[in-house]
């Protein structure tokens, strides 16, 4: 029997577990992935060389602390397939390769995160049939491996285009909202890439500049640097050629097709899958997109599963949920 069951071992879930362990409250973190850590695990450090406060290292620090804590049990490769009970006594059914098991907890924190948009669903950008079209996450992974190269040729890229708002602000693909984080992450990532490859020409296609810190003039400022182009336009499509061509309308209303070595799609955050079912079995609610609504006693939600947010805010929400759960447990005694 654990005091708190935390579903999801990403930034928010781990932060909740750490805060609870500081109060000597036992918790169990259940993650469906083989590795605990969530989405932020494959984000690279964006220091160039000073820390840019991208927060990618913060879940790593938290995970290290959590692993050392005697109050936290980590269960990976397991899905929570069902939940029952109510505040004070929940039963979570877990499925793993070794079968189905049950866990009893007094309180639940849902921190299942949110998947990124599957870029292949927006066929205009040719993610599935052009090797040189990458998602922002692919580029992060490439950055971690330390080898940025054009996938089709293996050469060092000379030019790079970033297309913002892919799978966000897009009612056709079920995500009419803004993902709130991609403006911030993309700029920091581009700066990091240019630190590594100072010669590379970068073109940033964006609709509105929405940083999550108050860096309102940062994009315009960066656009003045040599080798950086900032274009306010939503490209219509990517055309496959010897190099991918980005087709977009310019300020002068003419249509241009510019070739790039690599085209990066800044993918947005999607609502968590099957959230409705999990929510109703725990007596919680979701909004029309499937993001959890934060309210009620006993079961709490934190992190991206309550709406798109950056790592920092997810960690804050995880800590706040831990505080609520701890207060709820005190009330039980």
């Amino acid at each position, binding site marked *: 029997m654990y005091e708190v069951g935390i579903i999801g071992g990403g930034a928010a879930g781990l932060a909740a577990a750490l805060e609870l362990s500081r109060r000597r409250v036992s918790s169990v973190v259940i993650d469906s992935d083989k590795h605990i850590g969530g989405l932020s695990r494959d984000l690279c450090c964006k220091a160039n060389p000073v*820390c840019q406060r991208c927060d990618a*290292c913060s879940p790593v620090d938290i995970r290290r602390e959590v692993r050392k804590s005697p109050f936290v049990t980590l269960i990976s490769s397991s899905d929570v397939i069902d939940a029952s009970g109510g505040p004070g006594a929940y039963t979570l059914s877990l499925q793993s390769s070794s079968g189905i098991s049950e866990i009893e907890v007094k309180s639940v924190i849902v921190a299942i995160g949110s998947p990124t948009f599957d870029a292949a669903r927006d066929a205009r950008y040719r993610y599935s049939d052009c090797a040189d079209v990458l998602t922002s996450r692919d580029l992060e992974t490439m950055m971690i491996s330390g080898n940025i190269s054009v996938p089709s040729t293996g050469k060092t890229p000379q030019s790079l285009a970033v297309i913002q708002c892919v799978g966000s602000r897009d009612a056709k693909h079920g995500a009419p909202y803004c993902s709130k984080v991609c403006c911030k992450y993309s700029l920091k990532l581009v700066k990091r890439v240019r630190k590594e490859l100072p010669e590379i020409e970068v073109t940033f296609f964006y609709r509105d500049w929405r940083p999550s810190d*108050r860096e309102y003039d940062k994009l315009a400022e960066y656009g003045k640097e040599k080798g950086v182009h900032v274009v306010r336009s939503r490209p219509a499509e990517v055309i496959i050629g010897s190099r991918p061509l980005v087709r977009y309308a310019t300020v002068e209303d003419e249509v241009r097709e510019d070739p790039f070595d690599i085209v990066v799609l800044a993918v947005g955050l999607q609502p968590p899958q099957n959230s409705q079912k999990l929510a109703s079995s725990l007596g919680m609610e979701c909004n029309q997109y499937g993001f959890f609504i934060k309210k009620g006693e006993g079961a709490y939600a934190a992190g991206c599963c309550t709406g798109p947010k950056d790592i*920092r*805010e997810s960690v*804050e929400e995880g*800590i706040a949920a831990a505080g609520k759960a*701890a207060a709820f447990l005190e009330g039980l005694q």
Partner: protein
Amino acid sequence: MILIVGGGKSSEIAAEEVIRQGAVPLRLVLPEETFSFLPDVETVKGRLLSFTGVQGNFQAEIEIDREVKKFNVGAAVIAVDETPKVSDTDCITLSSILENNYLKCSGTIVILLDAKKPSRASHIVAVEKAIEIKDNNPDCRIYIITPEVRTFGLDELEYCKAQKKGIIFIRAEDIKHSSGKMKVTDSPSGKVLDITPDLVITDEEQEVKNAALWAKAFSINLYEDGHFRLGNVSRGPVTSMRNGVFLCGTASRALLPREMDTSARAAATRAVTASQTPLMLNSAEVDEEKCASCMTCVRVCLFHAPSINEKGKSEICRDLCQSCGLCVNLCPASAISFKGVSRIELRNAVDDVLRCLHE
């Protein structure tokens, strides 16, 4: 007891959360500051003269009505929110239309959002207000003029709704406004528009009032732009560089109302945890039998922890010692040690570190 500084929204949420978690908040505002009344929260008007001690055991000296009172505090939350700067122009501002009812306005209305340091919520406030005005009076023309439309997250849906209702958004950097006429250059198309507004509403610059005063009292730092400096990323969010002193709300960065709520609750949670877990620093101790009163430790300690006591021997003040180990290694009589750590162990640990550095 948790000390909460500030009289705005964040302080209210933090105080509520502290109570929920079974601790006692004490809210402190400056004598000249206005604040909202909270029935369950003790709020004092005063000045913080000093804040000493460590996490779990701070001492706050507060001057209240010319009298100095001492409080024992477990942790502190700085919840000093941004407030609009008082401007000298007589323009109608976003916050004033929230307070007064401007629903009856008609004709051409321009909402101009181009302040350098606006509130992060200014765009969604403007969009919601514009929809309200338009619903009330469908004949009026409403323009929202701004360099970028910043409706973050789900607020984007309100922006789409406003567009459908016929509210016109113009993205412009170049705005000329004189004697009742406006010349605006639409940045995506480069077209110049002439607008003759009947009413112009602007957004306001924000500032954290008295930040320098509080920062000094708590011995923490500010950013150049006047916000409180956050702790390094590795210290976690809502931290400052001082253990046991937390930051929330717009004290350190611009936030949306929902984000403010989260950060205030997170800061309250961390403060309650911190007040329950006093920071255990293992201070260095002197073996008086061995001490030769050579004063080496007194001279080398950067924190003025060792001093010679009435017996003529060195004594280390536990509160001041930061466990740096300098005196332990330099004492010629080997009289200083950390409890439970022998000199040999310490030397071995240092050797290990040095070996790692060389490899």
